[in-house]
């Protein structure tokens, strides 16, 4: 499993450089009050998208499914590795964007974004879990090339979702339902994390089982 994840990282060494440079640009381009709160979430979503799509496209470009399925590794393991690799990409995204964010704290740089927070990670895990739970079964069924346009639009949607959700939150901040929700969170601060992680886990499990079923029947 770890070997397959390592393979997905090795075949896209340039993505690391891209992510770092992209991180720096992101803080400059989106240095405004509208996007500031969401900057890490949006950055990590695009980072994960880039790593994920590059790995899948490389597999497809080299017809490496035949290679992978000729190695002594089970098909379930190949599918599971793809799901777990997403968490590795989230960690890489957090690390690189976190580092970029730290660089911007230097007094010589006029732009000063906020630092990475745990809630950013939580939001990314939740949104990416929804996104890949839909994307992976389609990927294992149709392949990366067939989904190229779909995946761009699909992940762009998730790129802008945090901003829309935030605007929605601001618009309805004083409503009874949201005040009630805020009250509950104030009483048990860990509750959102538990709910988000549990929901993500459930979604990913269902999606994995579906992808596994598709991949076990696939012919190369």
């Amino acid at each position, binding site marked *: 499993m770890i070997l397959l994840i390592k393979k997905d990282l090795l075949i896209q060494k340039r993505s690391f450089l891209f992510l770092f440079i992209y991180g720096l640009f992101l803080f400059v381009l989106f240095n405004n009050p509208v996007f500031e709160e969401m900057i890490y979430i949006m950055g990590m979503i695009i980072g994960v998208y880039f790593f994920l799509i590059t790995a899948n496209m490389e597999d497809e470009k080299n017809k490496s499914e035949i290679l992978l*399925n000729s*190695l*002594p590794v089970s098909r379930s393991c190949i599918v599971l590795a793809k799901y777990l690799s997403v968490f590795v990409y989230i960690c890489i995204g957090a690390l690189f964007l976190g580092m970029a964010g730290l660089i911007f704290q230097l007094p010589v740089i006029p732009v000063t974004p906020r630092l990475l927070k745990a809630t950013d990670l939580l939001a990314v895990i939740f949104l990416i879990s929804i996104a890949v739970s839909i994307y992976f079964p389609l990927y294992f069924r149709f392949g990366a090339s067939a989904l190229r346009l779909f995946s761009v639009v699909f992940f762009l949607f998730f790129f802008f979702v945090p901003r829309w959700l935030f605007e929605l939150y601001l618009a309805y901040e004083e409503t009874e339902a949201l005040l009630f929700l805020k009250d509950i969170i104030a009483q048990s601060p860990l509750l959102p994390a538990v709910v988000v992680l549990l929901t993500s886990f459930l979604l990913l499990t269902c999606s994995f089982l579906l992808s596994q079923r598709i991949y076990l029947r696939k*012919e*190369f």
Partner: protein
Amino acid sequence: MEQTLEVVNLQKKYTDFTLDNISFSLPRGFIMGFIGPNGAGKSTTIKLIMNLIRKDAGKINVFGLDNTSHEQNIKEKIGFVYDENHYYEELTPIEIRSIIAPFYSRWDDSAYDGFLRSFALPQKKKLKTFSRGMKTKLSLAVALSHGAELVLMDEPTSGLDPVFRREILDILRDLLQDERKSVLFSTHITSDLDRIADYITFINRGNIIFSAERDVILDNYGLVKGNNELLDERTREQFVGIRETSLGFEALTKNIQKARNLLKERAVVERATLEDIMLYTVKGEIK
């Protein structure tokens, strides 16, 4: 004799092609040439052995084990060389090793390094800069570096120029002296097998035409050349395929001795090559 590979009544149906209850076996320590024209079912058979596609019926045993229920154990001991490169073009042979080696418990770094050196493959150049022949050599290096006891080769020489083809075949002949290794070598270029195959399995339109020792096949099949007057119902029955021209005929027989006895000095009867056997069997009557 211990069998490395046993294929029994294997069937796979597609809308336009059926692999029709094929059976053959490869004894341990031997090289089998798997011949047939393009589209005969060679790649389908190899994909079924590798479990890349699902069989509809039949049995495939590798090292005495079912190829689906013991898939991982079996693949640990199979080396594969396909007709095209499936390794990542952006990586170097060294990086390929770092990806592939950990999958095999018996991976041998020094053997891999040795193959790269003897095949004159640059260790630190990306695969995208390699020629087709170099990529085939790399696949061969990987296939032979993890103690594989069965090497499956699906058209490894197709698309290679004669110099590279000869080189690959020489490498194979030298390397496969190990008596534990068995090789299934699929090709439509029958001359590739002249010097290396112990057994020949011939497949055409999804059916096995024969599967036997190469020497037995070449001792039995014959090419008959003579005047068209010799062709009557009785002589035609002896032939698998006939090519007739205004100057005479050329035909393939399965029983060279019988043809010699029948035609005596009236025709020239000589040993057939694998290419003759494949051509006349596939084409039948050529006018």
